[in-house]
């Protein structure tokens, strides 16, 4: 693994950053006076805590190599799918199709990723799950809200399993001169998107005026989005040494994934609003679940995967 020294440098860098971020949060808390700043700091602290979680989990999983990362993302998908399907339309007649989603489709998708069967994992959920799950529901003979039930289940699978599985799929990209360093691509993607996400929040708070979609989320503004994408590009370029891309390429890719991530969060906000919840789950008390923390990464991952595969992959 010629990526080893870079991984160690990155890990130390990230840990140093998180220590500083944690200390900063504690210092801000002492100094905070108003209700508004307290709320801001609570949200900030929750983010830092979830970053610690992500770093520890990613680091632990990568000790076990590709298998570790595939298992980690399969578990994350499981948790996210559970949060998603808790809120979607369903009746007793869907029991078997939902069981299949959790215990058959999800494991098969990740197993296909692990054996690198690109031709099948690319269509497994969009084609096979899409056609077969409604059959499992229809055989039970319950017409009430049928289309809504099967559509919402399929949508949940597409986002929380299909899209999410493209993050570990990055490990099998055949990039010339990059063998053994693929995990750095995942680290780059996650760090860039998380930074853009939090900086979008900061920019929105500082100079946000025009809401992107007022009825979906008041904290998301066009000024924040612009600031988020610019910040994401800067972070992406600064971390460009992790990737096999040139400066211009890395800037374009960073812009693409941050924009996709921000829009993904917006889509998930729309669903949360429709279902009448503030957060998807309760991973951290009062601060949301797996889906809330990873919606942006999940939306960006398939596009990032396919663009990189199309333009850079050797095979």
């Amino acid at each position, binding site marked *: 693994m010629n990526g080893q020294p870079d991984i160690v440098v990155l890990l130390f860098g990230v840990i140093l950053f998180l220590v500083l971020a944690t200390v900063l949060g504690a210092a801000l808390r002492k100094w905070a006076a108003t209700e508004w700043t307290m709320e801001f700091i609570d949200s900030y602290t929750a983010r830092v805590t979830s970053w610690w979680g992500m770093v520890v989990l990613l680091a632990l999983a990568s000790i076990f190599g590709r298998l570790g990362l595939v298992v980690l993302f399969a578990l994350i998908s*499981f948790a996210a799918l*559970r*949060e998603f*399907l*808790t*809120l979607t*339309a*369903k009746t*007793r007649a869907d*029991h078997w199709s*939902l*069981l299949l989603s*959790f215990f058959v489709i999800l494991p098969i998708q990740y197993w296909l990723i692990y054996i690198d069967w690109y031709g099948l994992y690319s269509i497994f959920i969009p084609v096979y799950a899409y056609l077969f799950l409604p059959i499992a529901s229809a055989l039970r003979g319950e017409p009430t809200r049928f289309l809504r039930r099967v559509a919402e289940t399929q949508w949940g699978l597409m986002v929380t399993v299909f899209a999410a599985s493209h993050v570990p799929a990055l490990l099998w990209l055949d990039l010339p001169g990059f063998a053994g360093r693929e995990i750095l691509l995942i680290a780059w993607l996650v760090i860039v998107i998380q930074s853009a996400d939090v900086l979008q929040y900061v920019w929105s708070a500082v100079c946000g005026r025009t809401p992107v979609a007022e009825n979906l989320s008041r904290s998301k503004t066009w000024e924040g989005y612009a600031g988020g994408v610019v910040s994401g590009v800067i972070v992406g370029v600064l971390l460009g040494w992790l990737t096999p891309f040139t400066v211009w390429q890395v800037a374009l890719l960073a812009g693409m994934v941050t924009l996709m991530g921000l829009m993904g969060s917006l889509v998930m906000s729309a669903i949360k609003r429709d*279902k*009448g*919840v503030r957060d998807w*789950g*309760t991973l951290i008390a009062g601060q949301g679940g797996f889906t809330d923390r990873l919606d942006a990464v999940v939306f960006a991952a398939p596009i990032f995967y396919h663009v990189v595969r199309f333009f850079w992959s050797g095979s």
Partner: protein
Amino acid sequence: MKRLTRLTRRFAALVVGHGLVLFARLITAPRAIWAGVEPVAKQRIYFANHTSNGDFVLAWAVLPPHLRKKTRPVAASDYWLKNKLRAFVGGEVFRAVLINREKEERTEDPVDLMVAALDEGSSLILFPEGNRNMGPDPLLPFRTGLYHLASKRPDVDLVPTWIANLNEILPKGEVIPLPLLCTITYGEPIHLRRNESKEAFLKRAEKALLDQRPDTEVQE
């Protein structure tokens, strides 16, 4: 020898109890929302909605261990005495207060049994609908047991306990549970008011329980 078997059984009950708690937590990742009361050691009757056989386990498993030790679910003897395994789980793991739902057959009055358990210092988990609710209505009309308990032991807190989602996790007739998220909401306690009629009290108790339903469930 007898003492040894008793110890073994108690140990087995402990192991099975912990196993069930772990299993329930893995499957439903249950979250207790203490909306109207704190999880403190105070004698209570938790009265809950009943949609699935799993509620029994869950309402018990989600309590903090120090409360769980002192809390006994109230359950139907026709179900829990059907075979030896059920009798062991119901009687020794949950230490359920088993009551007979058939008026003609029973020798002991269910309310007396529950009052006796309260007098020993236990808290109770009670499903006042009496039967599992399979219909579209969120609650079946309460049976009168809750009222009789409230009039005989008026100082005990009656805590409305709403179990959300469990009917979807394990619908009737299914064996494999779906791993959806489940919440258990504990509301503000109620007590029997002076001169309150049976009907008025039961209506008030039903409303107190319905008020604990999460918004997402009400919306549908």
